[in-house]
């Protein structure tokens, strides 16, 4: 086990920081009523990566498909286009959720269609949905650690302003101001992290970290934006790291499904203990 920990320490760091950062981004996105849009954009990132894998296969037939920069570039480009198109259509529609769900289905269908025509990318496309943190190289792990570390510093510095903007958007119907540096910074960095996480860590890990902790902690009796964001970050970080280590200890534990389940159990136990202590007082 010690050898495994020494081998995987960069990946454990990447899992902790990416999980924690995604959970805070998710809480802010849900408040901005962008959860379903994120689902659609994540799926569009998947479509982009599949396209990129196909292009990689055409131009570099002997290389490792998933390790070239082409899927990454395609993933970023298609998810940016997915974000822009869903944003534009939703602004001209009175039923935004339906538009986002339709876009999600469309991107999913297009990905499957592509896989059907080009079976060579099938195994990579499957890995895209369920991901496996174990397969990250040391370089990729350190890259994720650096990227999520930078975004977490941005979130630490500007969480008050970002949650204020989220409040205005949710309660007062103020539209997003992409010309505002704060909103622009949040959307660009979040989009990049979500897209890269979908490509390298999988759709299930990404969506679980984004939405499970904030959903469970929304049942908490305690109030305050800071405590909520702190709790989701802490639980997602602890669970992503410990879930990964547990899956190393026992190979029957599939890494991402285990992390997904623990992302719900950890906050539930925390909230249960909190209520118990409150009643005992």
């Amino acid at each position, binding site marked *: 086990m010690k050898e495994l920990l020494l081998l995987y320490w960069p990946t454990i760091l990447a899992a902790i920081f990416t999980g924690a950062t995604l959970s805070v981004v998710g*809480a*802010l996105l*849900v*408040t901005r009523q962008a959860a379903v849009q994120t689902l659609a954009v994540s799926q569009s990132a998947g479509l982009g990566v599949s396209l990129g894998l196909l292009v990689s296969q055409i131009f570099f037939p002997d290389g490792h498909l998933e390790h070239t920069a082409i899927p990454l570039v395609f993933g970023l480009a298609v998810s940016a286009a997915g974000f822009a198109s869903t944003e534009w259509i939703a*602004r*001209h529609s009175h039923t935004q959720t339906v538009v986002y769900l339709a876009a999600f289905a469309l991107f999913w269908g297009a990905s499957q269609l592509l896989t059907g025509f080009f079976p060579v990318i099938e195994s990579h496309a499957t890995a895209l949905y369920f991901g496996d943190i174990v397969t990250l190289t040391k370089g990729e792990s350190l890259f994720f650690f650096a990227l999520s570390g930078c975004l977490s510093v941005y979130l630490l510095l500007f969480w*008050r*302003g970002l*949650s*204020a903007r*989220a*409040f205005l958007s*949710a*309660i*007062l*119907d*103020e*539209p997003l101001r992409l010309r505002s540096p704060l909103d622009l910074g949040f959307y660009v960095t979040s989009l990049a992290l979500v897209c890269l996480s979908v490509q390298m860590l999988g759709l299930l890990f990404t969506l679980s970290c984004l939405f499970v902790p*904030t959903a469970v902690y*929304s049942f*908490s009796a*305690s*109030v*305050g*934006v800071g*405590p*909520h*964001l702190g709790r989701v970050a802490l639980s997602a970080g602890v669970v992503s790291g410990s879930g990964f280590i547990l899956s190393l200890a026992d190979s029957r534990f599939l890494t991402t499904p285990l992390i997904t389940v623990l992302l719900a159990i950890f906050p539930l136990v925390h909230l249960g203990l909190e209520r118990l202590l409150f009643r005992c007082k």
Partner: protein
Amino acid sequence: MLRAEGLTYGPPGLPPLHRGLTVLLNPGELLHVVGANGTGKSMLARTLLGISAATEGRVTIDFPGTRYLPQMQNRAAHLPYTLGDVLRFEAPNAASWCGLGLLRSEQFSLAWNKASGGERQRTLLTRFFLQQGDLLILDEPFNHLDVESRDIVRRLLSETLRMNPHSGALLISHDDEPRNWMGPVPVRTLSLGGA
């Protein structure tokens, strides 16, 4: 000065609510916008501020800084904001929050999602009056308020315009007559019909 000329606006994809509308607000005065439900009062405010796009016309705003109180939708938020959180975004110094008389200090720790409509509106109004900006746009500020709170808002608005003659206010309200409480501040009325 706020000036809009030849303003044509309405919901996207539907016929315009108004064509060629002229709106003028000079410093030191209050423009009272009245009209029945659905006549486009809130949309006028959003169009003047550039939040909604006008089909035709030009809007010029010379006031330094704008404060905008949109009509409250009385929604819950996903994040567990306290009333204090909402105010802290605007004014970090909690001592200034009580001075306006709309909220008591024990209400600052109250959850937004559990607060009444009146408490929510008083929080948004406190936030509004703590902001900087000479152009004040208020969309139905008296909704959800009791008589005492309405009087405080009227006093705060009147004082703001009297103490700063460079400021001007656009008030959307269909159940109040500002001439009765604005004192020496000139009040003009813009009717969008149906009232």
